[in-house]
């Protein structure tokens, strides 16, 4: 089947934390196809390039897809102003998500999300919670105002919230609570690059997967904007080979 450009109908737009917007979109086909870690590539009128935004959850019954985004510039600001009933032009689901085939039943998995990197981790957590797996989540935010999805995580995972300034939960970086989380078989992480660097260094002896970001041109693997060097002296494209990679495979 050929890939498509989807018209996704906006069902709701809600500010759920400081500068953080949750948007629910109706598009059954995308909802069916998506696996955790994949992203939508959204066209915002007036901007040359599409915006990559991870999928935070899907409801296949409803045919919906939920995304979360932080207002950082013109594109996300314009998206935040969308009204229910409007449509968003999207490519996707793009990229390869978190493969969970190697997560064994009865195992224990560590999930580490930082800021707006948390949505795809939530999607993954939901999927993993359908398996017989014990989940531990460490969620990092700048400060209290930015915290979101804590309750949702608590329902399915042992959850630690960390804020940089200590205004909520533990103070410091996500890595600061690693001593408390206990043993795990594998970790999954998404967040800002400095966090991922710290996480992969700290957990270098553990098996893990990380989801990465880069500025994109095409978003489909054609333009070579988003490459990342790999340990075997080659490269991968974040948009199409990723955004999820084995922590051992790539050079951050």
């Amino acid at each position, binding site marked *: 089947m*050929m890939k498509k*450009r989807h018209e996704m109908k906006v069902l709701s737009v809600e500010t759920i934390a400081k500068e953080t917007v949750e948007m629910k979109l109706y598009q059954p086909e995308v909802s069916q196809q998506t696996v955790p870690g994949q992203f939508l590539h959204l066209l915002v009128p007036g901007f*040359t*390039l599409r915006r990559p935004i991870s999928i935070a959850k899907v409801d296949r019954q409803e045919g919906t897809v939920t995304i979360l985004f932080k207002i950082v510039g013109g594109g996300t600001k314009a998206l935040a102003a969308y009204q229910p009933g409007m449509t968003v032009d999207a490519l996707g689901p793009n990229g390869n998500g978190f493969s969970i085939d190697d997560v064994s039943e009865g195992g224990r998995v560590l999930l580490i999300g930082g800021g707006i990197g948390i949505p795809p981790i939530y999607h993954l957590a939901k999927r993993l919670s359908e398996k017989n797996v014990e989940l531990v989540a460490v969620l990092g935010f700048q400060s209290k105002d930015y915290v979101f999805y804590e309750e949702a995580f608590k329902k399915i995972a042992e959850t630690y919230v960390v804020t940089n300034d200590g205004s909520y939960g533990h103070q410091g970086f996500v890595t600061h609570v690693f001593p408390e989380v206990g043993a795990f078989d594998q970790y999954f992480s998404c967040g800002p690059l400095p966090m991922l660097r710290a996480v992969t260094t700290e957990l270098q002896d553990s098996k893990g997967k990380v989801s990465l970001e*880069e*500025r994109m041109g*095409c978003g489909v693997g054609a*333009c070579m904007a988003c*490459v990342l060097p790999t340990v075997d002296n080659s490269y991968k494209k974040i948009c199409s080979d990723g955004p999820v990679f084995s922590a051992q495979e790539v050079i951050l």
Partner: protein
Amino acid sequence: MNLEVKLPGLTLKNPIMPASGCFGFGKEYSEFYDLSRLGAIIMKAATQFERFGNPTPRVAETSSGMLNAIGLQNPGVERIIANEVPRLAEYDTSIIANVAGSSLEEYIFVARAFNETNDVNALELNISCPNVKEGGIQFGTDPDMAKKVTAAVKEASNLPVYVKLSPNVTNIAEMAKAVEEAGADGLSMINTLTGMKLHLPTGKPLIANQTGGLSGPAIKPIAIRMIYEVRQQVSIPIIGMGGISTAEDVLEFLQAGADAVAVGTANFQNPFACVDIIDALPETLIKYQYTSVQDVIERRGAVV
């Protein structure tokens, strides 16, 4: 409607082709539509050896445009011929190879390599990529250097050669005349304009390479001006590009002096850009009272 265009080495069912570097080797976009619909495909630049390109970030958005500094990342000409060309050859479309290099020898090597395959129909000689530090830029801004590399590649290759001009020059017509004299079969224009964007929190260039090439609708008026200017002074065909995203844009390029066009940045916004334009072209031509693509090309003679 008859959209056919005949150019040296190329009989195009329509004048639309994806621009080099904006379509990879076609694989990704073949998942969106049948590539046989395209007039031709211009492949990503080929160099002698594999190149890993520049550090990231490699792209930045600008008003109605974007900057890129990919740095000619490609698997090298041999692997392109071995792996990419045969796959593309399965489509009913023409293939144009974009030849890049940082020395005369490299250009010759790459051009000669494409003699090995029967599936490439023409070369686009990229003397204008602004991102290679080794001196590649000079071929594109100095008429004598441009002449030299054009003559050398013509000599080395069995294929028609379309020389891709850089807009970063004081006098584009002079460049065009130089490569025409040196034996170019056609021109391809324009490549990107050198630009920069800063990252405000650091005050440093956003793109790791510092400068990048500006493409997209922002540059269309410059492309149109240059093609119009060159069309008055050279007679070889022109493949026009720079900011095309609609069938009306295509008509404007044809009226200005292009004989076919390439679509670059627009593919990123709309992966169906090329086929959407092909679909819209007949009604656009009818709207402006043209009977075919050839009709536009012939009638502009009277205009200029």
